[in-house]
């Protein structure tokens, strides 16, 4: 996919996120929207996957360690063809397979149940270890939040990943700078994030996580790294694409009402139109 196509796809995924969260009347739009380019790049460019065979043995794996941004993952999986886009409106509804947090037992394409912060990255390390033991050539990707890395388990997992030289593992930090209680710098600053991963012996790449050229360069660089896991520190804009949600802490975990939904979809419609005129 070229860059323009990726941008159009990310915009469609944003529509899916907003639609799902609006329908659920609950959920986490901010951190889903911030990571839309990351999701898009992984599922439409980077990963060796097959939506018709979600459990393909040698597939690349993705674990959404920041599991509360499930709407972002679900909108991406639907866009990629794992399940119908129409199902997105059942998010968080009683009886729906689209659980509030990713559920590997029910949802095609979900490689690991997650949501309790700090745990997904450990499972990613386990999958990468399994790949090494079996001499399999699949790669493992996990997306963690910049607030999530306050969890000690993230660093337990990171220490082991580097110790075992897991060069088949890429940890992406969605560095949108906001968490529920406010800016991460005010709650309990994890900065400098890059230096911390460096100290844990990761290969570290700093990028703008909403820029496809930089994402492309970073994931290609990660593939070339031997003997070390890679951490991509992706600076992103929380709520990106929806005017009134951008960089607003309040939109971490809140659904738009009908009028806000109309405005949000109008924002995204216009953005899509602009992309089509390029």
């Amino acid at each position: 996919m070229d860059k323009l196509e990726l941008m159009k796809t990310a915009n469609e995924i944003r529509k899916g996120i907003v639609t799902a969260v609006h329908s659920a009347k609950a959920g986490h739009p901010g951190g889903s929207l911030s990571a839309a380019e990351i999701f898009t790049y992984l599922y439409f460019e980077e990963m060796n996957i097959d939506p018709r065979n979600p459990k393909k043995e040698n597939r690349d794996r993705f674990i959404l360690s920041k599991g509360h941004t499930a709407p972002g993952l679900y909108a991406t999986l639907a866009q990629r063809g794992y399940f119908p886009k129409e199902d997105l409106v059942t998010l968080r509804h009683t009886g729906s397979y689209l659980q509030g947090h990713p559920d590997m037992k029910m949802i095609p394409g979900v490689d690991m149940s997650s949501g309790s912060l700090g745990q997904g990255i450990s499972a990613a390390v386990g999958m990468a270890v399994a790949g090494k033991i079996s001499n399999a050539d699949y790669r493992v990707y996990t997306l963690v939040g910049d607030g999530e890395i306050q969890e000690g388990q993230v660093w337990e997992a990171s220490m082991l990943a580097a110790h075992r030289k897991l060069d088949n593992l890429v940890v992406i930090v969605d560095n949108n700078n906001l968490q529920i209680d406010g800016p991460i710098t005010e709650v309990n600053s994890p900065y400098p994030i890059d230096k911390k991963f460096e100290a844990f012996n990761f290969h570290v790449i700093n990028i703008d996580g909403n820029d496809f050229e930089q994402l492309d360069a970073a994931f290609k660089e990660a593939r070339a790294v031997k003997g070390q896991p890679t951490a991509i520190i992706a600076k992103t804009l929380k709520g990106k694409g929806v005017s009134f949600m951008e960089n607003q802490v309040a939109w971490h975990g809140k659904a738009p009402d009908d009028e806000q939904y109309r405005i949000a979809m109008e924002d995204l419609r216009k953005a899509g139109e602009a992309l089509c005129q390029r």
Partner: protein
Amino acid sequence: MSEVRKIATRESYGNALAELGAEHDDIVVLDADLAEATKTGIFKKAFPERFIDCGIAESNMIGVAAGLAAAGKVPFASSFAMFAAGRAYEQVRNSVGYPHLNVKIGATHAGISVGEDGATHQCNEDIALMRVIPGMTVICPSDDIEARAAVRAAYEHKGPVYMRFGRLAVPVINDRKDYKFKLGKGVVLREGKDLTIIATGLPVSNCLEAAGKLAADGIEAKVVNIHTIKPLDEELVTAAAKETGQVVTVEEHSVIGGLGSAVCDVLSEKEPTRVMKIGINDVFGESGPAAELLKKYGLDTESIYEKIKGFVR
């Protein structure tokens, strides 16, 4: 009387892992810097490429085990019960239990018989913690033979299993030709009509001795060994209660939430029966030699015998 062979079930765990490891390539063993104590060191020596020492980070170890299982391996994650079931509880619940992953947890040094290390390391709550997780199988073997059979059964079972092992060497009581381990099935070790003693793990051998002493007093106790606490052999438990009319449960675990509670859960619904629960009475342990602690906390043969004498009608 010939010398009774004694072996700690943690030793059985290590030996069984090494044996199974030779048969199955998909077994991976994890530990958290306790390989010498949990005896996974035996597996490590035989299969170093399939042994993952996670260092002192049990929460991560359980998560790594979940990832290994999701990728098709059969991981055995090992630590002391205190840390496997205690510290990593939420990881076991959310990363293993909820997705029902094929992770086996080998928890050694359970109960008060840890001894000198004292209360911080004596886990008397793990059966309770593990039993409430939907889909979790909970096993507490009574001796070497049962423990080795349990590890094999855990491997063959698809789904999460918690196995509870001890530090202290315990008598081998199951060395008979017809011994068969079946997950979820209790074992009648002695017949009797006056009461049923239902026990699990370390004190099963003491219960057999206590039953011998009771017989000398004219009280015939049926002794049931429950190695699988979940799923509980409800059929055997209710039938024994109906047959003998009174039940005593014995476990090296808190009387809250363990075998005693599991038995009462079933009997109160299906066969209301007088039950006395013998175990750790809602207190923390303390430092001391294992044998002395077992006596002090009422889990030696004499104490069990005395308590039953006072209970039985």
